[in-house]
């Protein structure tokens, strides 16, 4: 019984991590049809922002939940104005340019922070559950993932900003005819996506040893989760994170983490082959 509960938490945690790391990418892809391949580096940047500000004396929760998103959002604004906005509507070119950005950021960060691994301790202690030890921070990550999904859903569905963003996604010309500048909508959406990436990077920072190349660990999983999810931002990301998280974590528990990751990737290929427009291209059509 205890073991079942522990396994359930582990699986929820795997799903939560996927939701967390892909939320920012899902917003940018779902709303703007832009794939930000530098997403992994955005997460890493958020992680560095959290760690650096914490080491400078800021409260750990403040640095994770506030400093990291703000730093990455500011960086996102720069990137959108300098690179992305010249390439709207050219999916492959944005992918290539952001891949370049990813490499440049990786190189830049290793020049600034050095090729070493840094980290901070998790702020929440573990606790015993029956005969097993559970990590309290994992529960925090699960809670954060829930909060982000619910928050995103509410913003997109029930606020004016969300309405405009969805409108711009469906029909750019109509939106601009109504007096909303698409360029500004895109800027805000991209910044929001970057802020989410920063937040995720901050929350993940205590869990991983951070080095300039750690973005590569995130990007593939985030990318696959978003593409397999399809066009709907929240439901798509949740559905595919659910499938991938459960499968990879179950396989991991049965064998090794490496095999678990390979299982995730194999399932991704099969899923995309069967549902080429993603899960929400076939089911829950038109959802948020």
């Amino acid at each position, binding site marked *: 019984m205890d073991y079942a509960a522990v396994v359930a938490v582990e699986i929820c945690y795997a799903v939560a991590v996927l939701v967390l790391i892909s939320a920012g990418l899902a917003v940018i892809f779902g709303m703007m049809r832009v794939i930000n391949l530098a997403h992994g580096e955005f997460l890493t940047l958020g992680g560095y922002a959290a760690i650096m500000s914490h080491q400078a004396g800021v409260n750990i929760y403040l640095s994770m939940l506030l400093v990291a998103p703000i730093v990455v959002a500011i960086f996102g604004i720069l990137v959108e104005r300098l690179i992305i906005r010249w390439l709207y509507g050219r999916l*492959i070119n944005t992918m290539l*340019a952001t891949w370049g950005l990813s490499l440049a950021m990786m190189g830049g960060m290793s020049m600034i922070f050095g090729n070493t691994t840094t980290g901070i301790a998790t702020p929440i202690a573990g606790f015993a559950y029956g005969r097993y030890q559970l990590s309290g921070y994992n529960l925090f990550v699960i809670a954060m993932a829930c909060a982000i999904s619910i928050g995103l859903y509410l913003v997109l569905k029930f606020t004016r900003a969300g309405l405009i963003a969805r409108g711009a996604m469906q029909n750019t010309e109509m939106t601009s005819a109504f007096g909303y500048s698409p360029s500004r909508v895109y800027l805000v959406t991209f910044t929001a996506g970057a802020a989410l990436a920063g937040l995720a990077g901050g929350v993940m920072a205590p869990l991983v040893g951070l080095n300039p190349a750690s973005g590569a660990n995130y990007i593939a999983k985030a990318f696959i989760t978003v593409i397999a999810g399809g066009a709907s931002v929240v439901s798509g990301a949740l559905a595919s994170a659910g499938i991938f998280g459960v499968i990879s974590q179950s396989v991991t528990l049965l064998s090794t983490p490496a095999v678990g990751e390979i299982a995730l990737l194999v399932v991704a290929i099969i899923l995309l082959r069967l549902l080429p427009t993603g899960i929400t291209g076939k089911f829950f059509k038109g959802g948020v």
Partner: protein
Amino acid sequence: MIAREILPSIIIGLILMFILPMMLDSYTLTVLTAYAMLALSLGFIWGFAGILCFGQAAFFGLGAYSYAIAAINFGTPWGPFFIAILVPALFAAAFGAVLFYGRLSDVYLAVVTLVMTLILFKFMNSSAGEAYKIGNARLGGYNGIPGFETLTLPWDSTEYMYDETLFYFAFGLLVLVYILLRVCLRRPFGRILVGMRENEQRAELMGYDIRLLKTIAFSMGAGIAGLAGCLFANWAEIVTPALFSLGQSAEIIIWVIVGGAGTLMGPIIGAAVLGFTKFLLGQQSMIDNTLVLGVILILAVLLLPRGIFPSLVQLWNWLTGKLPSASGDRRRRTNKRRNGSDNGSGNA
């Protein structure tokens, strides 16, 4: 007609083959040639068949690993040489058939090919230990496979090819593959591929099976990438999982886009120039290598979306007065067609 087109390539190729070793050491040149071959493989499937494969490194790595594993098991180098081409080509044919018959395209294709590369990378990285053996060859996990038999002269199996000999061999193969691809693009098969790239639906309505065509082109590209991998394995004398890495895949795409997708010469030039830049950058420690590559890719996408080589050709044509104006793509095309010398958008 074809002979007249190919003769200059052969002559220029031969001249370069003898001039280059005087300017650079043949050790660097050999690896640049392998890179150029790899770039050529992606340049063919992306630039002419319109298949953007984010995982060309997978076939490169597969070629290298197939060669190493076969060479250890057989103890002779020439069988493995062909195996290194065949294994990636067959793998790509099977994998490509699954994808193209499922009508995956652009982003989804890019994701799936990227994922495939990641799977191979993860698998090879975690394949340390006795359990992972193919015949006598241990996969060796992160450390890769060292110490396999390298290529010997075809007529003398005691004389290994290394340094200059290996460069001449690699460069000769590069010229050969280039010429074969050019001939192929002149034949109906190549023409249909380009037509398919321009308008898939139209090609299909004319009765061509684009799924089959794409699969064949994909498999050809993989075979060439495998050959590049084999050359690389012979140069490095070790194969490691880094061959499958994301960074390697990114680099191939950068070579092609900087050199010029849609041409065969562009990717070769891109690979040679950027590969050499990387060597030079590797000798200093002030600026990070990856940073420079990334910035080059961003600038190339933003400023030179057609690549160096096509831009140079356009400039040259404009300077020599072949064209009424450097701008106006449409006018240029009609002009060329009138002269009866239309090469498509560039079979250079």
